[in-house]
Every structure is written in C-alpha cells, then in structure tokens.
C-alpha cells in the first residue's frame, strides 16, 4: 500500500514539474519562434540583417566579451583573496562580491548615472582624465556605459563558482608545491587552475548568458538606438514601434537571443558533463 501511494506521489511531483516547465519555459519559447516566423523566412532574414539589429548584436557581443574577461580576472583575484588569506575585512569583500545579485539592475544603472553622469560627482575626475589623455570617453549613455553596467551585473557569477572549489581544495597541495620552491604563478597554473577549470568555464558561461539578457541596468544608461542599444533594448524598441511588421521583427530578434541562450545551455551541459567525468 505504501509503495503505491509513494509512487503516485512521485508521479504527481513529476507531473507538476513538467507542467511548470512546459508552461513557463517551453510554451513561451515556441511562441517566440512561431511569431518570429509569422511573416515567412524572408522577412525573418531581413529583420535579423537590419542595420539596427546588427548594431545591437555587435554591442551585446562586445559588452559580453569584455564583461567575461574582466570578471574572470577580477573574479579569480577576489576568490583567491577570500579563500586563501585571512585578513580584516574579508567578510566585507565577500559580501561586496554578492551585491550585484541582491540589488535591482535598474538601481545599478541609476547609480552609474549619479556617479559618472554630467551632474555626477565623479564627472570632474573623468573630465580631468579625458583632458590628460586627449580622449572623449563618456561613461553614461555610451557603449562604455553599457559595458560597465554589464560588468557590474554579471560580476558574481564567476566568483561564486570558483570559491566553493577553492575552499574544498584546501591549502595542502599548494603548501607542498610552495615547499618545493614553486612560485605563486606556477602554483596557480599547475595546481589551482586544473582544479577550478570546469567551475571557471561554467561560471563564464553563466556570466555570458546573463550578459546577453541584461536589460534593466543597460536600459538606464543607453538611449541611442542603432548606436548604444543591445539586443534586449532593440527588441523593446521594435515592439514599441507598434506595427504588425515591427512586432514580428521584435520576435525575430528575440529568437536570435533565444538561439544564443540555447547555445549557452548546451555548452553548460557539456561542461557539466566533462567536469563530472574529470572529477578527481
């Protein structure tokens, strides 16, 4: 009797989970594809090839790549500091790493404007740097602003993957290597890195996936369509354009994002699989 009722419970749970996923994920994704192709393949191709779409794609990719690189380096450093050393303020650093998770991205965007905008307190400093270097870098309403906002929002992803791995590894192997005269860099390269390799890759994928889809923070600091828009902003603009054509275009560009997300998902699964297999 008990076995049967637990079997029923099991199938109920599975059923609910499947229904949830279908409703919240699968159905909307299919809807996107369906609406994207509503006007036929040619219109789909035109939408993807439009100047504004390509510009948005370029900005999204640029922001993602830079965010991933910067966050990998700083994520590694921050994780290393937090796990290998004991210092005052270690807990503060640990909390700071997680801040982008807890605050709304829109607030991050607004904070950027408050800091680097024309009326921001850091503007004179930025002007000074610009004068000294002879450049014209703007940190709001520009592509650098988009990049910075993306970096901020995706920062914790890599640290969070690496920190548990570094903790689990402990200091023994590194001490053994240090005893034999290995330099810090050698220790990192030969002993630490192989251990965190898959976690790092996983974090990179998560970071990239998040960067693709960032809307709130970027929306606050990017206003020029065809110049500083990312794909999500471009989709919003197409949808707001209101005509039946532009809505189909909005879905077409959305399907592009969906495609990128699916690629990330597949990569993530591969990494997870390889990581488990190589788990030593």
């Amino acid at each position, binding site marked *: 009797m008990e076995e049967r009722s637990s079997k029923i419970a099991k199938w109920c749970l599975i059923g609910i989970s499947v229904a949830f996923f279908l409703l919240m994920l699968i159905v909307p994704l299919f809807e996107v594809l369906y609406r994207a192709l509503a006007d036929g393949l040619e219109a789909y191709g035109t939408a993807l090839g439009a100047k504004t779409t390509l510009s948005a794609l370029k900005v999204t990719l640029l922001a993602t790549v830079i965010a991933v690189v910067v966050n990998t380096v700083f994520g590694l450093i921050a994780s290393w500091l937090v796990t290998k050393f004991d210092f005052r303020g270690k807990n503060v650093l640990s909390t700071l790493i997680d801040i982008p998770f807890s605050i709304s991205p829109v607030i991050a965007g607004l904070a950027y404007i408050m800091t680097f905008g024309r009326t921001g307190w850091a503007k004179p400093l930025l002007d000074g740097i610009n004068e000294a270097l002879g450049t014209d870098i703007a940190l709001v309403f520009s592509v650098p602003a988009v990049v910075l906002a993306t970096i901020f929002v995706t920062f914790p992803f890599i640290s969070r993957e690496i920190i548990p791995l570094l903790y689990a590894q402990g200091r*023994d*192997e590194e001490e*053994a290597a240090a*005893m*034999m*005269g*290995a330099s810090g860099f050698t220790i990192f390269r*030969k002993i630490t890195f192989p*251990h965190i390799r898959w976690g790092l890759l996983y974090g990179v994928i998560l970071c990239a996936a998040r960067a693709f889809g960032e809307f709130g923070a970027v929306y606050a600091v990017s206003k020029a369509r065809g110049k500083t828009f990312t794909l999500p902003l471009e989709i919003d603009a197409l949808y707001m354009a209101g005509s039946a054509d532009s809505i189909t275009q909005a879905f077409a560009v959305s399907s592009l994002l969906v495609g990128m997300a699916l690629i990330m998902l597949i990569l993530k699964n591969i990494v997870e699989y390889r990581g488990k297999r190589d788990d*030593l």
Partner: protein
Amino acid sequence: MYVEMKEICKKFGDYEAAKQISFGIEKGKLVALLGPSGSGKTTILRMLAGLERQDRGDVVIEGKVVNDVPASERGIGFVFQNYALFRYMTVYDNIAFGLKVQKADKQKIHARVMEMVSLIGLEGLEKRYPNQLSGGQRQRVAFARAIAPNPQLLLLDEPFAAIDAKVRKDLRKWLKDMIQKVGITSIFVTHDQEEAVEVADDIIIINEGRLEQMGSPIAIYKNPKTPFVAQFIGTSTVLENMVGFKGYDDALDGKKVIVRPEFVEAFKSDNKKFANMMNAVEEGVIENVVFRGSYLELTLLVNGVRLTTNRSLERRHVDIGEKMCVLLYRVYLFDDKGAEIRKNQLLKGIDVEAL
C-alpha cells in the same frame, strides 16, 4: 649535530605550542617526534620545515641558522599527512615536480624519476593519477616526490595516519628500509608509540609543548625520566594507595604507582618455576580474562587493587574467579618531583629477567 632546535618557543594566541624546545639530531638518523594529539609535535616539525616561524629560538641545519631562510630553500623534503599529491598530475609528474621547479635538465629529470619509481616499487604506474592508486601507493609516491630533489632532510607529518591498519605495518617496514637505503636524515611525527618504537632510531617525546625525554626506544621504555613518559609508553595502569604489598614496605605510600603487565606475574599455586619466590607472593582473584589475539589479558584483584598481566596462550587454562598467586616484580613510583623504578625487595638476588 646535523639538525638542531635551540630554545624554540611558539605561541598561537594564548596557546603555547612550544616551550623552549631544544634537541639535536645526528646525520643519517631516523627520529620520531612522539606525543599525544595537541602536544605541539606537528608545530615543531613545521617550524623545522619553515612552514611556521618560531617566536624565539633558532633552527639550525648543517651548522647554519636557517630562521630567515624560506621553506623552499632549506633543502627539505616534506611528506604531508594526507599525502597532498597533486591530483591533476600523473605519478610521474608528481615526482618530477620538485626537479622541474629547479629547472633541471629534462634527461636528468627522467632518469631520476624512473629511479624513484623503481625505488618505491611502482614501475608501470607512472602514468596513473593519484585517485587511481591505493592509500599505500599514494604514500609511496608522496615519499618519492619528497626525496626526488635530493633534499638533506626528510620530514614526515604522521605519514601513516590515513592508512588501513593492515597496510600500515607493511608500509612502516618499507619506509624504514627505504630511509636506510637512501641514507637521508629523517624526522617523522606520530602519536602511535608502537609505530615510533618500531621505526625510529631515536624517539623524542613531546607533551604540552615540552620535550619530555629523548633517547632510544628501549632506553625510554625501561628508564622513563618523567611521569608522563612512564605513563605514555607501554600499556600501564596508574594506581594510588597501594598498601600492604610484600617487598615494598612503605615505599608505595602516598605515591602514584605505574604497573605494567610485564611487572606482574600470575601463576597457579602448584607452578614449580616460582617455587623459590613464594615468600613474595600475594593472593589474587581473576576478575576478567580477555583474548587479545595472540595472548590473554588477565585482570586480577590483588590486595584491593586491580592489576593487569598478559598470559601466554601456551599456558594452562584459567577461569574467572580462580585464585592465582601474584608476584609484583617492580613498579614505577612517581610524584611531582620525579619518577623512579622500585624493585621488589624480596626478590633481590633472583634474576627475574632470566625467567
């Protein structure tokens, strides 16, 4: 003296891990740092290695004071308790690591690594990863890795703690043989006295950060200098208020007495071997008989005190409750001032060791 520690002191916050430790070790010797958990022995080892820095005192290696010399430059091979093998490298790469860091010639590295591999008896397993080896094999690789760069001193931190009991015995013998073969001065930390006694040339006993005694295993066993050593070594019972034992008069009054099983002899009254010692015999009743694998352990109640003795399986059968004749050959006496061996006065003249 090849390796010396002079008046070493170390505190971790309020906890004193080392209190004026001084000792010297000759070249080529295999020494055990023996003590209970938390006695500070691992800290001493790490200070020797340079992994910890002493608050006061000097570490001297080959006549040079190495206090300010970093661990990697002291010419020391270190074997960690949990091996700390590089899990993402093969056995070959693990052993080769120290030499690679020294930027030795590739040919030389290969020759040396293969020499090590054959020394530790793991030929054919060089391409394996640590997780593909048994505990004993890993320990051997850790050993090879430590001595591959030809260190002057080998330090081992509880090398057998993580190994199965059965394998442990074999591995101990193997390690002793290896170290003798290679001829390297070695110090290892352990809390297992059986291990220390079996493997080491000399034993240094550490308790609560203090050096209790240093000497050969037999010397320590037979002539413990401090109460702690007397208790720590061998299986012993500590007794108080031992009164009325023949042959000891008042010597036992008010003192703590350590009695080892080999100090006690229990025999049946008709045993002719002890016929000339019947004047020193006490009467005892067997309270418990426990089989210890290769002998019996008897617990007897004698003069209101429980004594333990070991009985060969070759002797006659005994039962619980049986009355036995009990001889107490000698005891260790100690109080706050010191420890001494006290022999049974009534047995003077009789060569007890010849029995």
